[in-house]
């Protein structure tokens, strides 16, 4: 296990420490390790996909297994890798950043973590079931996921339920912690941005995860109990499924990116040695992105046959989201402007985040233009878009956070040379993988196909090579983490020259119990 070794008092020994712990640092570490494991499992599935797509023709897998891979890759990365990683970071850092001794509901915290291994064990077990794993895409549109689903769909539904309960409980815990346990003099507008973005994310989780739970429950009763929510024959409507799913799904997208905004807003000022530009506007921008996210869901459904007025409404609302998002990017650039910058690994990841996330934002703006979306929809252009916002967006921000706070967690500096290696390999690999997808998508390659016509061959080969480079570079990260846990140069309390905030007031590594008496906030 990583990070929380050698403490002077507190932790129990052996397995019981991890099974029964109520310590936010232990639980945070477990979340992070779990999500890293899922990142590798989901990543291997991506590599199977890329292996099949190296050249036209069916070589490695058959279409039915290919569909299982695309589905499981999406589900595992969204619910198993990105979301738990952010919850892990929140567990570790929110109490440290607001000067609280622990999360508000420590036992619930333990419970919400331990739901996850069961959820994903159940989900992964479908791979060896008769009929195979879910094969209807991570968006599981009815009736492909109801009437026509493999028998394992029931396990999928319960896995989603468990993961959903875990997220909701985690979110409730974060909200209560932030609202009730801040150090006495820390007003809301003094909270670090990571805390702010997590507070807003937690509210989004509470608002939409139950809707997802309701939707999969409807699927369950449609499949087993004779209801017809999504079956036109019984008076239901398959399009209703899409409305329900995206009512959850679009805010979900922001659940995976708002904490990333928070992380970048911590890192950029530190390495620019300059306060964050436009703190208040950052908070307002985050809140308005969260609110707008409830009004744009049907932009995923422009080709479904929505009336003209509906198309226009959802197009305008979606375009509007680029305003607060733009404000954030401008603020980060303004923070760097006239700073005194150094480029350690966290900063490299953060800068790559800003550049590549902005590219993903631009393709998002293009996708928002409803008439053009009739050509983009369900092509690799969409795949390129959401991987640009999720990989250099969510994943890079998590990596940046891990490098940024790892010395605080372990008490040792990570290997800067290996960190930079990891960054550059990832950066090159990811652009090789996902940039050509814009081209094949525009040229007309639909997504989720195991085989393609020959004019897409060259770019797909490039994507596959890039995919393998990106995938295997992540092993460098494991090496960095292992080395850093084992030893290395001792880290000081204030690890980075320009770092501000309560988390740097405790020694490195952070003791098992911190802030038992609330600190003073300037």
């Amino acid at each position, binding site marked *: 296990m990583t990070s929380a070794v050698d403490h002077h008092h507190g932790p129990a020994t052996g397995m019981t420490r991890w099974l029964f712990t109520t310590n936010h640092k232990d639980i945070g570490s477990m979340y992070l390790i779990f999500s890293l494991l899922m990142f590798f499992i989901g990543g291997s599935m991506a590599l199977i996909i890329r292996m099949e797509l190296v050249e036209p*023709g069916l*070589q490695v897998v058959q*279409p039915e297994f290919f*569909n299982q891979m695309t589905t499981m890759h999406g589900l595992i990365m969204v619910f198993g890798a990105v979301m738990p990683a952010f919850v892990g970071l929140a567990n570790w850092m929110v109490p440290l950043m607001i000067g609280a001794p622990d999360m508000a509901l420590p036992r619930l915290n333990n419970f919400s973590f331990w739901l996850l291994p069961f959820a994903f064990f159940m989900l992964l077990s479908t791979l060896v079931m*008769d009929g*195979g794993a879910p*094969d209807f*895409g991570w968006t599981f*549109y009815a*009736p*492909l996921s109801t*009437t*026509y689903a493999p028998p394992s769909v029931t396990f999928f539904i319960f896995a989603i339920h468990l993961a959903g309960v875990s997220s909701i409980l985690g979110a409730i815990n974060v909200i209560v912690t932030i609202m009730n346990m801040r150090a006495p003099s820390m007003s809301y507008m003094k909270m670090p941005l990571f805390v702010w973005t997590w507070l807003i994310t937690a509210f989004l989780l509470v608002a939409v995860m139950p809707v997802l739970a309701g939707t999969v429950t409807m699927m369950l009763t449609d499949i087993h109990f004779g209801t017809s929510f999504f079956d*036109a024959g019984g008076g239901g*409507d398959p*399009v209703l499924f899409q409305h329900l799913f995206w009512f959850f799904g679009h805010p979900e997208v922001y659940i995976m990116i708002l904490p990333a905004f928070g992380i970048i807003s911590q890192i950029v000022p530190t390495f620019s040695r*300059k*306060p964050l*530009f436009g703190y*208040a506007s950052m908070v307002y921008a985050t809140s308005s992105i969260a609110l707008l996210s409830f009004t744009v869901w049907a932009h995923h459904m422009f*080709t479904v*046959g929505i009336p003209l007025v509906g*198309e*226009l409404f959802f*197009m305008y609302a979606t*375009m509007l989201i*680029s*305003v607060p998002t733009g*404000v954030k*990017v401008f603020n980060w*650039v303004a923070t*760097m*402007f*006239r*700073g*005194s*910058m*150094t480029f350690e690994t966290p900063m490299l990841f953060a800068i790559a985040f800003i*550049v590549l996330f*902005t590219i993903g934002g*631009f393709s998002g703006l*293009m996708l928002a*233009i409803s*008439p053009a979306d009739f*050509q983009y*929809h*369900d092509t690799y252009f969409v795949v390129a878009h959401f991987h640009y916002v999720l990989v250099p967006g969510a994943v890079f921000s998590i990596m940046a956070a891990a490098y940024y706070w790892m010395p605080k967690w372990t008490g040792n500096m990570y290997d800067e040379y290996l960190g930079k290696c990891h960054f550059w390999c990832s950066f*090159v690999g990811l652009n090789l993988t996902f940039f050509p997808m814009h*081209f*094949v998508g525009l*040229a*007309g390659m*639909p997504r*989720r*196909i195991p*085989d*393609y*016509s020959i004019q897409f061959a*060259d*770019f797909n080969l490039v994507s596959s090579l890039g995919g393998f480079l990106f995938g295997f570079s992540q092993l460098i990260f494991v090496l960095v983490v292992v080395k850093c846990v084992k030893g290395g140069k001792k880290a000081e309390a204030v690890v980075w020259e320009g770092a501000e905030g309560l988390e740097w007031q405790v020694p490195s590594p952070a003791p098992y119990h911190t802030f038992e008496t609330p600190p003073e906030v300037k």
Partner: protein
Amino acid sequence: MKERSCSSAVLIILAALWSVSAQADWALNMTEGVTEVSRSIYSLHMQIFWICVVIAIAVFSVMFWSIIHHRKSVGAKAEQFHENTTVELIWTIVPVLILVAMAVPATTTLIEMYDTSDSDVDIQVTGYQWKWQYQYLGEDLSFFSNLSTNPDEINNKVEKNKNYLLEVDEPLVVPIGKKIRFLVTSNDVIHSWWVPAFAVKRDAIPGFINESWTRIDEVGTYRGQCAELCGKDHGFMPIVVQAVTDEDYALWLTEKKASIAAEVAAAARVWSLEELMVRGEQVYQKNCAACHQVGGQGISPMFPALKASAIATQAEQRDAHIKIVLEGRAGTAMQAYGAQLSAVELAAVITYERNAWGNDTGDIITPQSIQSMLKSK
């Protein structure tokens, strides 16, 4: 030093890409298409793309300028400013104005796409797992369009032709210069009918119809694919549209109807086992092999085997075999082929299944017997 070696690696990769691109046909951008709508979508796409490029250059050049000049290693001292209301207002309002400028042409194009005026040709497009059916409304003409790529090409046994996976047995034929209205629906799961050259993409939803329209300017063959995940062979249900002149269209209509009539008439004559086996193999490859597999072994448990199966070998299961082919099995990919294939094709494929792969029952199913089972009005 590290960065140096990384960047040289990038250079090598770029050089390799460049040499490949010199020989290969790298399609980079959206097609302009052959309709007014597709062209306005293309120009909209390019406008927005260039606006994004300009904004990107502006923002990133400021950023990289700071990265170069305001680094600690060149002695930059950090200033401590952290807000400026004027600047913040400007970069909120200017993007709003840019968005308004984008929204105007987008709205115009969208209204054009939603035109509901009268049409010249109406075609019902129905998605099936995994093929398309085209019905010419008011013409009493209907047929299925299946992928016609040789399975050996897919399995890398022979070289792939240039229309690999984008070729069908029966293309949709339409006249140019006429307003064609597509009524899109589905028979089972959700599909999406997409032809990039027309910028027509509509989801096919079971129980509902959606409409879209096009007016094609040029004679030609246009290819597209299903754009909504619809199960196992989602990647193997292409769309081919032949746009022809008015005269050619009229000629094609007459010929097509005549060939369908001939197929119906063929049911009346006597067919030998050999004839049925030859025809049956063709029908099987086209309609059945995707699930039950070329060798009849199926894919357990979703798609049962036919080879050495009770249903295809036992004499007392003969009627059950015919019934399941004609009526399908609800909630599975097994469709009711009674409505999709001709009596001859049905007789041939059932005969084939009962005699191929060592099933050797010797049964001959006649087209007449199928006809009597289909309609006993």
